[in-house]
């Protein structure tokens, strides 16, 4: 690793670690460890949600998908950004007002059933693992490019995975939600700064976005594929107009007609079922604050993804012309096109900012991985520690024991993630998927959107939802999503194949229908009216706001009194 990259990376990691230490939990209660005392402000929480949500799939994956597939890759950005609209409309405020620790906790209490809680824990863990593995893969890819060498006989890829998961697991186990909130907020600001810096540098060097799209769309889109005679460029076929070559600015480079909608719907509906993102809403002081937080997230997400799409386009346009001037690009490219599309942003950073530029972008990528992994590990800890350990294994656990259980769970989940990611080889997927990182995250969105979102929405908006209905809906959604995915991966069926690999468009309506049918045949929880008052009333919000106003007024009075006494 060169000196400038090391310095940049070291500074970033130092800042994150210092934040974690400064903002560590002050008490040992589970509300403090899992929910940061439920006192996280609107803007801080919005930054932390962005840090949580903008993972390697967003930072490296979206630019990579646009780099490989043009307009079809941009649908990833649209889908990721769209996800917070349903969250804002249906989930944020009522979820916070009900006020629990996790999605399984919410469903278990709302429907008065431990069975619902345990089934939800299973689904949540599946989503978390599907989301964690691509993050670890992203960190391996970044380390490979940034450092290029391993530690203790390990490959660079394996070193990146093991180091990042170890560091993050340590930070989460130490900092809990309070420390994680602030490190995620700082990490998001660093991530955004890296993206803005890269965009500014690229635009400053004369990149013209519109001209680049027009220019790239004139020639057929071609990408490297490994073959018996080594890597070669192969022209992508248009999936909408068979027989025609695909073009960067037109739809069809990756998805056919149905696939275009299925991907966006899968990503848009999946966000409301993502445990690490939804858990953040429980840290807001009120339901109204949770709603306002989501508006901030929508605005920040729009800016972030617009930049990511632009930089994916910039990489496609600018890298071929830079190969002669930068010989190190030859081993990463085939006729000017990157073999691993996730290298798009780091390579752009190195071209325009030298080794320090590579350090900035690579640090951004590692930060994106770390903040998301932190949120996922914490969500995993909350569901195992709170929903399983405290409820079923040791119901008499002290607060200290419960927090310890959460810490142990964090470490176990980190080990499982690292083990799975070590078994992956990202370069072997580039011919079948626009970005392995973004595609794997889509699996997590698919399970979340198929199994959790329908049940979640019905539990919030339909009084008739029952425990039996919720269990049937979650099991159906999960089974259908996983089966469709497995079939879609091993078969190559035209038209149907695209729906199979983005199954939410089918699985979510089926899961919702099963939930409704089974609920109609079973008994509604006795305290549903009480739940309704808490979820859809604002008395608790007003109470919290009054308390906050009184605290501020009291603080001012005390400050004024001290001033008068000094005079």
């Amino acid at each position, binding site marked *: 690793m060169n000196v400038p990259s090391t310095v940049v990376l070291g500074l970033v990691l130092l800042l994150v670690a210092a934040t974690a230490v400064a903002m560590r939990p002050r008490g040992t209660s589970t509300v403090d460890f899992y929910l940061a005392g439920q006192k996280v402000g609107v803007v801080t929480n919005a930054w932390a949600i962005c840090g949580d949500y903008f993972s390697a799939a967003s930072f490296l994956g979206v630019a990579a998908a646009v780099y490989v597939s043009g*307009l079809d890759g*941009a*649908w990833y*950005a*649209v*889908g990721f*950004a*769209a996800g917070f*609209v*349903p969250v*804002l*409309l*249906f989930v944020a*405020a009522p979820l916070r007002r*009900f*006020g*629990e620790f996790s999605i399984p906790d919410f469903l278990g*209490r709302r429907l008065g059933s431990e069975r619902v809680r345990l089934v939800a824990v299973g689904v949540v863990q599946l989503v978390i693992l599907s989301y964690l593995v691509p993050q670890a893969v992203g960190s391996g890819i970044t380390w490979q490019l940034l450092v290029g060498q391993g530690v203790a006989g390990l490959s660079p890829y394996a070193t990146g995975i093991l180091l990042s998961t170890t560091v993050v697991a340590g930070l989460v186990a130490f900092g809990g939600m309070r420390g994680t909130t602030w490190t995620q907020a700082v990490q998001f600001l660093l991530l955004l700064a890296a993206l803005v810096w890269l965009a500014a540098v690229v635009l400053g060097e004369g990149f*013209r*976005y*519109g*001209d680049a*799209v*027009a*220019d790239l769309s004139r020639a057929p889109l071609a990408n490297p594929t490994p073959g018996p005679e080594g890597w070669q460029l192969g022209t992508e076929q248009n999936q*909408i107009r068979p027989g025609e070559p695909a073009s960067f*600015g*037109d*739809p069809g480079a990756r998805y056919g007609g149905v696939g*275009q*909608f299925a991907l*966006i*719907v899968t990503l*848009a509906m999946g966000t409301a079922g993502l445990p690490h993102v939804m858990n953040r809403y429980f840290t807001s002081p009120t339901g*109204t604050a949770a*709603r*306002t937080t*989501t*508006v901030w997230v*929508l*605005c920040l*997400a*729009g*800016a972030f*993804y*617009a930049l990511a*799409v*632009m930089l994916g386009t910039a990489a496609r346009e600018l890298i071929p012309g830079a190969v002669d001037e930068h010989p190190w690009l030859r081993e990463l490219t085939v006729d000017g096109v990157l073999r691993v599309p996730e290298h798009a942003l780091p390579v752009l950073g190195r071209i325009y900012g030298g080794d320090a530029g590579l350090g900035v972008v690579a640090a951004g990528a590692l930060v994106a991985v770390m903040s998301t992994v932190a949120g996922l590990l914490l969500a995993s800890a909350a569901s195992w520690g709170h929903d399983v350990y405290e409820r079923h294994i040791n119901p008499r656990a002290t607060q200290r024991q419960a927090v310890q259980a959460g810490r142990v769970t964090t470490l176990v989940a980190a080990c499982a993630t690292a083990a799975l990611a070590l078994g992956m080889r990202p370069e072997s997927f580039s011919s079948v998927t626009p970005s392995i990182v973004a595609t794997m995250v889509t699996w997590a969105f698919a399970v979340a959107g198929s199994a959790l979102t329908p049940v979640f929405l019905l539990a919030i*908006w339909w009084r008739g939802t029952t425990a039996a209905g919720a269990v049937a809906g979650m099991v159906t959604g999960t089974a259908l999503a996983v089966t469709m995915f497995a079939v879609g991966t091993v078969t190559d069926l035209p038209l149907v194949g695209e729906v199979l690999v983005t199954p939410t468009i089918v699985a979510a309506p089926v899961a919702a229908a099963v939930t409704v049918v089974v609920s109609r045949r079973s008994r509604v929880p006795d305290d549903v009216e009480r*739940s*309704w*008052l*808490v979820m*859809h*009333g*604002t*008395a*608790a919000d*007003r109470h*919290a706001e009054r308390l906050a106003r009184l605290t501020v007024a009291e603080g001012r009075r005390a400050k004024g009194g001290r001033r008068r006494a000094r005079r």
Partner: protein
Amino acid sequence: MDDGVDDRDTPAEVDATFRTLRRVAVGYFAVFLAAIVGFPLLAVTLDWWSASRLVGGMSPGFLMAAFGLYAFFAVIGVAAASLSSAVEARMLGGPAPEGGPLAGEGEEP
């Protein structure tokens, strides 16, 4: 579950607010769904949408995927959040007037 429910939110008030908010949410969701399904549909069905060139050489389809849809999501978010919060502020938080529910089906208190 939080126990901060005080006696100023009656079941009738909350039910009326819930129904109004549900209508707001479903209405905005319909617009949102029309957009996220409609724009890819235009890209697939309308040649002009992908072939013509607007700002700086970008097609309308690419322009929407690059900028337009994010701005649209933000606008929808701001509008829905403002309306939902205004509905809650008007329909909850005060003593019910005599002679009936605070607000039935979106009526103002």
